[in-house]
């Protein structure tokens, strides 16, 4: 018999959530031994489509064929048993258990009815050696860095020896080196005939690794093209249905006088940032670049008082300030927008009013009671100023897209009129269109004379909107780059950053 042309066909898939048509007659066909990229803005239906395949969601209608045979995978167990493995966007791991238990969860090797720890350990070691991953299988998974956890998830999915491997944003926390490593693994799998579905927002990655691209928009299939015959701009146009001449808005801000001076900032509990000194000007967007583990997040947290300052001094408007707690930092007009906004910034079950006003709730007190009217007014301001797309103020924030959630969180802090804005990966996991709006917002804020420090792992966005870039390496400052001198249409700018980022590693 001739082998099936497609290892997976998803035909006319429909899925409706209350109030939203998440998938509308979507088509997707995956050839064996190839990487097929699935692209689209957040909310376009990529993850939903794959969750229908993996049995997490139940499709309303449509047909799924695997190697030409119709299948109906009802739950993840079923999917795994039928040769579909998936790396989920949310790192679904049991943090308090060790690495090998997470890898073997759902299929523990047994010996005389009991779990065979030796086999588990050796099996994990073998998988890791095979994939060149340097992680101790006995380590508690919560102690690993996010990038290590992501690699463990990938290794786990690979170890199922599946016919179809789905990767949903597998590289969001990986360094370039780790991405290269992942791609070598994927190429090897392709040679063995595995079909790979690759979801990512990073277009450069997609064009490198995939042979086909399918683009979804608003739950509908838009196009399937050969990766060789499509450009970044075309992809973006198809995704957002509008031309994106520039990925970055024009720079409207002008750095002015020194706003804040940081001298020898060192966190108290290592591993943390060590002896970091720099100045921040009014109206400046100061980027912070570095590899995963370069302690950029720690720097922001120490500045904000959510991690303890060991040594060093923060001088604001020429006067030393002490941010020994976030409350105090707030009083000193600092604001921090966290990287893990879902777990540390968002109250998912609460509405937009609550999420907009919670950090500044005292301002709405009249006597012992909160005044709804003022809260509604400020919420309206957040929605208008940041162009939050929501049916109304009372919508639960978990029902908004990632970009709109991010806007509400930024809006929350803006209501307190901060002078120093600390942004940790402000565009992580949000789609291209929303990214542009966030950039615009950052630059507008800088134009209003606010000082902005922005940590990002996406080099193009740092190069695109920052005035200066601090490069951190292993907790220390390894260099400060200036627009027009070191970067900004200057050849070798990315290499300069990479070199500095690796300085103390």
């Amino acid at each position, binding site marked *: 018999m001739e082998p099936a042309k497609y290892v997976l066909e998803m035909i006319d898939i429909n899925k409706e959530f209350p109030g939203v048509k998440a998938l509308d007659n979507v088509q997707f066909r995956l050839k064996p031994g190839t990487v097929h990229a699935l692209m689209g803005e957040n909310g376009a239906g990529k993850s939903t489509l794959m969750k229908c395949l993996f049995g997490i969601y139940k499709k309303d209608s449509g047909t799924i064929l695997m190697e030409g045979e119709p299948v109906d995978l009802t*739950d*993840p167990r079923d999917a795994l048993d039928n040769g579909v493995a998936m790396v989920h966007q949310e790192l*679904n791991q049991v943090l308090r258990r060790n690495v090998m238990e997470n890898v073997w969860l*759902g299929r523990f090797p047994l010996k005389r009815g009991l779990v065979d720890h030796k086999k588990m350990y050796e099996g994990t070691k073998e998988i890791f050696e095979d994939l060149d991953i340097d992680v101790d299988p006995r380590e508690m998974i919560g102690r690993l860095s996010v990038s290590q956890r992501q690699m463990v998830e990938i290794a786990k999915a690979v170890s199922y020896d599946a016919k179809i491997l789905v990767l949903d944003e597998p590289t969001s926390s990986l360094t370039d080196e780790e991405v290269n490593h992942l791609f070598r693994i994927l190429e090897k799998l392709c040679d063995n005939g595995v079909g790979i579905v690759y979801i990512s927002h990073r277009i450069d990655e997609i064009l490198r690794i995939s042979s086909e691209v399918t683009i979804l928009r608003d739950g509908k299939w838009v196009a399937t093209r050969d990766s060789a015959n499509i450009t970044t701009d075309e992809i973006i146009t198809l995704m957002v249905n509008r031309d994106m001449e520039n990925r970055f808005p024009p720079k409207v801000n002008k750095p002015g006088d020194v706003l804040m001076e940081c001298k020898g900032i060192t966190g108290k509990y290592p591993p943390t940032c060590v002896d970091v000194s720099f100045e921040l000007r009014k109206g400046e967007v100061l980027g912070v670049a570095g590899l995963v583990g370069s302690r950029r997040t720690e720097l922001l947290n120490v500045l904000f008082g959510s991690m303890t300052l060991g040594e060093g001094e923060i001088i604001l408007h020429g006067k030393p300030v002490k941010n020994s707690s976030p409350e105090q930092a707030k009083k000193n007009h600092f604001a921090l927008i966290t990287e893990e906004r879902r777990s540390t910034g968002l109250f998912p079950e609460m509405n937009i009013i609550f999420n907009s006003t919670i950090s500044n709730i005292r301002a709405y007190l009249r006597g012992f009671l909160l005044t709804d009217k003022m809260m509604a007014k400020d919420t309206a301001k957040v929605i208008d100023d940041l162009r939050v797309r929501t049916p109304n103020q009372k919508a639960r924030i978990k029902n908004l897209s990632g970009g709109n959630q991010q806007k509400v969180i930024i809006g929350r802090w803006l209501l307190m009129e901060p002078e120093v804005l600390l942004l940790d990966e402000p565009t992580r996991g949000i789609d291209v269109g929303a990214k542009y709006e966030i950039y615009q917002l950052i630059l507008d804020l800088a134009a209003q004379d606010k000082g902005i420090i922005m940590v990002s792992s996406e080099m193009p966005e740092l190069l695109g909107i920052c005035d200066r870039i601090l490069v951190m390496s292993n907790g220390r400052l390894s260099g400060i780059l200036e627009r027009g001198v070191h970067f900004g249409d200057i050849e070798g700018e990315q290499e300069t950053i990479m070199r500095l980022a690796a300085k103390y590693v």
Partner: protein
Amino acid sequence: MEIEKRVGNKNIGEFLINNALYFILGAILVTVVSIKPSFATLTNFINIIKQASTKGILALGCAGLIVIAGTDLSIGRVLGLSAAVTASLVQSVTYASRMYPQMTQQINLLIPLFLSIAIAVIFSLINGFGVAKLHLHAFIVSLGTQLIAYGLTCIYIEMQPSGSAQALSTFNDNFLNKAAGSFSIGNVKIPYVMIYFLICAFIMHIIWNKTKLGKDMFAVGGNPEAAKVSGVNVVKTIMLVYLVAGIYYGLAAFLEAARVQSVGANTGINYELDAISACVIGGVSFSGGVGTVIGVVIGSIILQAINYSLYFLSINAYLQYIIKGLIIIIAVAIDVRKYLEKR
């Protein structure tokens, strides 16, 4: 050099916190002995463990439920029902107002044991079904089942031929010997119940650490979504954990009937609070996914050591409550230190 020293100090601190349970237990015993040296006898220590045993078995059962981020308010009342059924079947055949006058010969003890376990398992599975399938919070569903169990207990006890609601008592010797008796090693009397407790703890330790069920249980408790997408049958895991809990409750009820020697409508009342306290003192986290069997065992013993010591020191009964409350809070506060990260 200096760095090494710092690391050394940190390790000692960590060691103290990681083993806080043992130090707390030690501190309680040392305090009591220093107040009243006559406390330091083997009999007293055996008494503590003996008294900790029945509730310890309950704690072992409900610890699994807490690991899967649940709880169980029905333990005490379910124990009461199982104990009442046990009691009615082990009454001495020479006792005139026994519940079953037609019972003229002692029945095999395995029958009441089996029934006791079966009843507890049914209730536990109802709780499990409510949690796993109906998606009720364990607090709510067990709040309901404890009332049902209590009602059934009262009805059952009132079914005595005498028509009275007096406690079921006067058990046969065989039952009392097996369930509440002891054996001697030299001069030392070892209660059987202590051995049962240790066996139960050992079996639970194996279940938690060596079986698929145990691993799945920790996964479901620690991150249900991760468990689900890894192909773990979450519903089945929850049901099995409740099943095991039911078996332990049933066994504890059987032993408790022999210990109290008289089972009335209020037998078992508030036992769930002791079982849950023992678990949390022993480091089983209410947020799920964390706990050890040895912790639960030590937790049960600590709880009983507090009771026993306060009684031994003849402290005012009302004051005992207050001291016990404080010790529970302090013990758990110290124990959670090990999970707090310094930032």
